[in-house]
């Protein structure tokens, strides 16, 4: 009898959550300047609709959604647009961004707005409201949330799964959200269930957050079929397909979307953002970020205005220790290391982790000794050892045959590899190389 709340394989990185798990969410003061890239979500970048010199109020649209798989960007503070230019993006590139000089003496009160009443709204109206509020998946991938609210008609969605696993080491923003604002999360769930016509919802939370589990269980309203399910503490428990396997016992077929098994997964933070839309009418202009790490002086869970530069955020958290070495956006397993601290916090930034030197990966790489640990770690049952051998000699076609497409780059293989082989990086590069290969026509 397989356990209903687990998946096979996976790894146990040190959790390191004790730095911030007890710290209540606090609000960060507005920085002097905000930088808002037009590309903060998966899909088409937003279309600019302000010009240099314009004054914007907090919550004003500065860029509109460009198509269905796109969301608008809003000003996260009142101020003046000083420039629209290429600026360091958290993904390492430079991207078009709006720079706003924040008005120091503004009350930062958004313009009066109509708060939509969720009860009377059709699916389409909810989808539209969520899109206009710029809500995206706050778990890291930043996929527009409204798209998931309107799944293709040919699939019947029977269960909404809320992802509260937060399996990445260090991060505690979802944990604190559930522990402190369970009612808001459940209100978001109510709106989603209403919009999607789904009768059942399961919230999966790793067992290492007992206070969040308890708070959520207390907050479940009697008229909603919401189950709070404690999950085994294991990485990558929060990966969509692993979570579905753990909650329902069903494996999403390779290459298919979760909706094919009647399930839609949303992140806790996104659900709270939806609740915000229907509680206050405010768009997504700030998010909860765990700013932490052994290289940081004052780790905290903060409400951060989107567009805050990492430099300002780190300075607010007391600066870094002398042995700080690497700044990561997101968790240390799948996050991106940043080279430029002028890059801003964007909607998909779950955490900012400053690693101390001793925590970082060494530089020495040894040959693969075929120990097989990566096979025991891989949650999708690939053979990373073999794939790694193929990647290093560029045999990408054979990697396709070895199911490279099923790799979700969770990094479990590279985490356990005793030879320190950067397997996830090799696979990411191989996937990119394969995308560039022209289709052979015969």
């Amino acid at each position, binding site marked *: 009898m397989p356990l209903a709340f687990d998946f096979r394989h996976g790894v146990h990185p040190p959790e390191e959550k004790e730095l911030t798990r007890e710290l209540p969410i606090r609000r960060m003061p507005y920085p002097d300047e905000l930088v808002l890239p037009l590309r903060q979500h998966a899909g088409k970048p937003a279309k600019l609709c302000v010009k240099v010199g314009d004054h914007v109020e907090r919550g004003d649209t500065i860029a509109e959604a460009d198509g269905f798989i796109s969301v608008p960007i809003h000003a996260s503070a009142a101020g003046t647009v000083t420039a629209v230019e290429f600026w360091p993006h958290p993904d390492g590139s430079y991207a078009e961004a709006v720079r706003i000089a924040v008005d120091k003496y503004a009350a930062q009160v958004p313009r009066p707005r109509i708060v939509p009443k969720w009860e009377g709204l059709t699916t389409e109206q909810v989808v539209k409201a969520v899109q206009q509020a710029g809500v995206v998946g706050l778990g890291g991938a930043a996929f527009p949330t409204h798209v998931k609210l309107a799944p293709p008609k040919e699939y019947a969605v029977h269960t909404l799964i809320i992802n509260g696993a937060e399996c990445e080491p260090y991060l505690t923003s979802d944990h604190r959200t559930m522990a402190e604002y369970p009612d808001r999360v459940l209100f978001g769930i109510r709106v989603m269930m209403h919009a999607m016509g789904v009768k059942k919802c399961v919230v999966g939370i790793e067992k290492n957050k007992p206070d969040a589990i308890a708070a959520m269980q207390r907050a479940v309203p009697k008229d909603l079929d919401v189950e709070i399910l404690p999950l085994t503490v294991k990485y990558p428990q929060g990966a969509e397909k692993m979570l579905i396997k753990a909650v329902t016992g069903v494996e999403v077929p390779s290459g298919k979307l979760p909706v094919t098994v009647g399930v839609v997964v949303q992140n806790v933070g996104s659900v709270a953002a939806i609740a915000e839309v229907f509680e206050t009418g405010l768009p997504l202009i700030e998010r909860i970020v765990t700013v932490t790490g052994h290289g940081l002086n004052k780790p905290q869970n903060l409400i951060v205005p989107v567009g805050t530069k990492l430099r300002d955020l780190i300075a607010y958290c007391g600066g870094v220790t*002398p042995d700080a070495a690497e700044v990561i956006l997101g968790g240390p397993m799948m996050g991106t290391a*940043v080279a430029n601290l002028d890059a801003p916090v964007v909607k998909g930034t779950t955490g900012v982790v400053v690693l101390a030197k001793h925590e970082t990966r060494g530089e020495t790489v040894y040959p693969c000794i075929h120990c097989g640990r990566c096979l025991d770690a891989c949650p*999708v049952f690939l053979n990373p050892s073999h794939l790694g051998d193929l990647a290093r000699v560029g045999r990408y076609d054979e990697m396709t045959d070895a199911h490279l497409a099923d790799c979700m780059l969770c990094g479990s293989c590279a985490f*356990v590899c005793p030879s320190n082989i950067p397997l996830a990086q090799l696979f990411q590069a191989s996937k990119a190389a394969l995308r560039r290969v022209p289709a052979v026509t015969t």
Partner: protein
Amino acid sequence: MTAVTPPRLIVTASPHVKAADSTPKIMWHVVLSLVPVIVASAWFFGISALLVIATSTVAALITERAVGKGGTLGDGSAMITGLLLGLTLPAGMALWMVGLGAAFAIAFGKAVWGGLGQNVFNPALVGRAFLQAAFPVAITTWPRVGGPFMELKGDLFAMPFLHPVTNAITSATPLGLLKFEGKGTELMGLVIGNTGGSVGETAALVILAGGLYLALRQYLNWRIPVSIFITVALFSSILHLVDPKKPDALFMLFSGGLMLGAIYMATDMVTSPVTNKGKWVFGFGIGVLVVLIRVWGGLPEGVMYAILFMNALTPFINRATQPAVFGSATRLAR
């Protein structure tokens, strides 16, 4: 002093953290776990055993330095090869032969394949197979166990290519006794290790303890030795039932090089299958071959050839035991 932002940033691909184990750490733990085996060999065969092991190890390290890729001494793998080869040789073997075997093991067992991780066959066993072919008499001349610690068990310091003077009292291994003279050996002696044989293969309990340590720390995969033990035990028990003159399971398990081979050589990560299913198959194959060679082969002992043969099959076993991918048709059908 606290800086607001770090002066220099490391930028690497994810994951940015790593489990504590490293390849050198695994290798050096294997070396550490061999220390009791070496001590046991010195206890039973005296200074001669230490001379054989030391010569083999030093020759392996020098060869690694000379023909290896450079900077590879620190990974500990050459050390393991040298120690293991030394442990599989008789105490009285001429040291120049021992050194030659170790050099061959590193050069042709590992370096020509491309170094650590690339070789198909276990390097220590390649070295031993070479010695078996080159010096069949010397490698089967077993000095008697016991005697004063400082006693030299054979013509250890014979000059190369001169006829060695055999002056030590020799004995036979338990497997040789059984095969050629039809005599059994008391089980207790086999378990403790005060029997004839290679310097490091006789103390079964000590080897088992080392294997247990490595298995608990997950530095060896327990499936391989367990699979070998189960196969050997079952197969030889069946033969023993049919013909009681054939050795029983306990004799088979504790005699000869089975313990050393199953725990320290078959589990060589480089030359054994990478999948768990494959490890069971690999161990099964070794177990069957060991019994076949011991019972019906011309040689009294078959562990070395059994492992080398299964090493050759490892790529095929890997291919046949690939895991079924998450959400694939194979898994969904289950």
